[in-house]
């Protein structure tokens, strides 16, 4: 390493420090924007340092420059366009697409590194191959896996788990091919073997995500995020670049933590989600089994009276709210209630939405101040003091059955909605949530059902409250 490349590595370390600092500033909404700016600055420093290195080396051909610049410009335009156009409800898809391209780029770096090494005298170095193989495998799996995940979230591919006969055998076969080819590559430099490794990994990514139900997506996206980070770190090993190693490790850690949080909040192990347990998608079972219990439905006026004369209302938003694009309607209803001096807060379950923290972003977009958004541990003791709990499009996360053994969701942490003095549930029908079981909350004598699409319901309720209180 000559002194010039050493200096470049030092600049990379400075960039890495910016990434750490940027993530650190994300620990509060008040400083998070600054965090993103610090992180951006780190990225600019790293890219400029790389360009300086390229110019210094002087071996980049005219075609090389053209290819790099045109590629990067087109990529920037694509990134910019999608970042500005994306709806907040579609964030999970976009994050998934960024995982795909990040993982894909990392795999390409290793593939190129390998082709280079193979043509070099002395063949492929053993240590290089370990990281090369890991990078190619993880990067390729992430690429196709994330594309499938994005397709499922976007509705291009069915959100239902896709399970076909022999899928498991095929997975085992692919795993054997991947392991075998990798072992072969350790001893023999072979381009065809590398190609087989790439193809098998790409196929494995598809088969890994296809059987996973739409409702398990928060876990899948977090996991693929961790994969991308790991692939980038491996690419860093391949080309001995500290910036890639540090940044990749940071992302790997972040994805890993979020994966664990999400899996815990659903009370499911990662293995269970990957192999496909009960997550049979958003299936709708017939009404029947709530038993003989009386389901009470309520009209807008009565619901409005309950809320308008309450002193504390807790709103429990779920994915149904986002699906109906009702977040602005909810915010408006909350504002009307607050203007009457009613204490309104939001109870956010960790898996509300389609990715970690998704519901918070949707409500922030609807201009809801973030101090009103309460995490599960914080809000649960407050339900007992609430006059009305308004559940909008949330199902399994409010089901008291989770507290008992013997149901599909036993042990899952839930919001203690049943502790509130009265409960209004806004829902389109009695269809069950993705766990496919009935919600005992609906049979609770304190519960009234308001059957309507969330957006329509919010408009009706807001209008009713306004008429009531003038």
């Amino acid at each position, binding site marked *: 390493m000559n002194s010039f490349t050493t200096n470049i590595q030092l600049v990379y370390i400075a960039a890495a420090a910016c990434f750490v600092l940027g993530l650190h500033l994300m620990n509060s909404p008040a400083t998070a924007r600054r965090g993103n700016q610090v992180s951006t600055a780190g990225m600019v420093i790293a890219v400029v340092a790389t360009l300086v290195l390229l110019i210094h080396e002087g071996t980049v051909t005219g075609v090389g420059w053209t290819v790099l610049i045109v590629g990067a410009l087109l990529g920037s335009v694509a990134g910019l366009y999608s970042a500005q156009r994306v709806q907040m409800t579609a964030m999970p898809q976009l994050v998934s697409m960024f995982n795909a391209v990040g993982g894909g*780029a990392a795999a390409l770096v290793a593939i190129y590194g390998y082709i280079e090494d193979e043509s070099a005298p002395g063949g492929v170095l053993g240590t290089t191959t370990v990281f090369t193989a890991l990078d190619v495998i993880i990067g390729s799996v992430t690429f196709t896996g994330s594309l499938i995940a994005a397709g499922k979230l976007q509705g291009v591919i069915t959100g239902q788990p896709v399970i076909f006969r022999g899928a498991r055998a095929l997975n085992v076969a692919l795993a054997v091919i991947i392991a075998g080819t990798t072992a072969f590559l350790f001893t023999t430099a072979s381009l065809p073997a590398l190609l087989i490794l790439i193809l098998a990994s790409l196929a494995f990514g598809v088969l890994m995500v296809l059987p996973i139900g739409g409702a398990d997506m928060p876990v899948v996206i*977090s996991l693929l995020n961790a994969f991308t980070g790991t692939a980038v770190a491996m690419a860093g090993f391949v080309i001995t670049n500290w910036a890639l190693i540090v940044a990749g490790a940071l992302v790997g850690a972040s994805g*890993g933590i979020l994966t664990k949080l999400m899996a815990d909040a659903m009370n499911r192990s990662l293995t269970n989600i990957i192999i496909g347990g009960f997550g049979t998608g958003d299936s709708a079972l017939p009404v029947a089994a709530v038993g003989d219990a009386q389901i009470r439905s309520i009209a807008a006026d009565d619901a409005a009276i309950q809320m308008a004369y309450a002193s504390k209302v807790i709103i429990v938003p779920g994915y149904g709210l986002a699906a109906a694009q009702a977040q602005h309607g909810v915010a408006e209803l909350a504002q009307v209630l607050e203007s009457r001096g009613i204490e309104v807060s939001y109870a956010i379950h960790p898996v509300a939405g389609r990715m970690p923290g998704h519901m918070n972003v949707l409500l922030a977009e609807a201009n809801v101040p973030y101090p009103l958004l309460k995490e599960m541990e914080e809000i649960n003791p407050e339900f007992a003091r609430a006059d009305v709990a308004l559940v909008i499009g949330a199902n399994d996360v409010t089901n008291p059955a989770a507290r008992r053994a013997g149901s599909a969701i036993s042990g899952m942490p839930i919001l203690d909605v049943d502790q509130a003095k009265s409960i209004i549930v806004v829902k389109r029908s009695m269809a069950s949530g993705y766990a496919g079981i009935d919600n005992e909350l609906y049979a609770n004598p304190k519960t009234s059902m308001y059957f309507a699409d969330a957006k329509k319901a919010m408009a009706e309720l807001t209008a009713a409250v306004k008429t009531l209180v003038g």
Partner: protein
Amino acid sequence: MSTALVTDLTIFVLALLVGIEVIGKVPATLHTPLMSAANSIHGIVLAGALLIGITAHNVVGYVLAFVAAFFAAANVVGGYMVTGRMLKMFRRKAVPPPAGAASANGQGGPVPARREGGAAS
């Protein structure tokens, strides 16, 4: 095992530990922006993509460099943009005057209220 590799592994493990420490403190409210920020950070692979250019002197090299640069640039630019867009929406208080207007004139309110808020902050 070479010294360089040991150094690389040391950096990797320490960065992993720093990541766990720092990210464990991020509140659930910010988990989506966090993941999006992490997403833009792995866009650093753009540096790796650019470095391909140093030795790429044939068609295969050029094609790989082009695709890698395209992917990585989309990742990095899109990631930072969308993270910034999201974080701009988080605010402590509802913007007072437009918020009052929003409750008075109904549906049309929230959208202009958001724009004014964004410009002010």
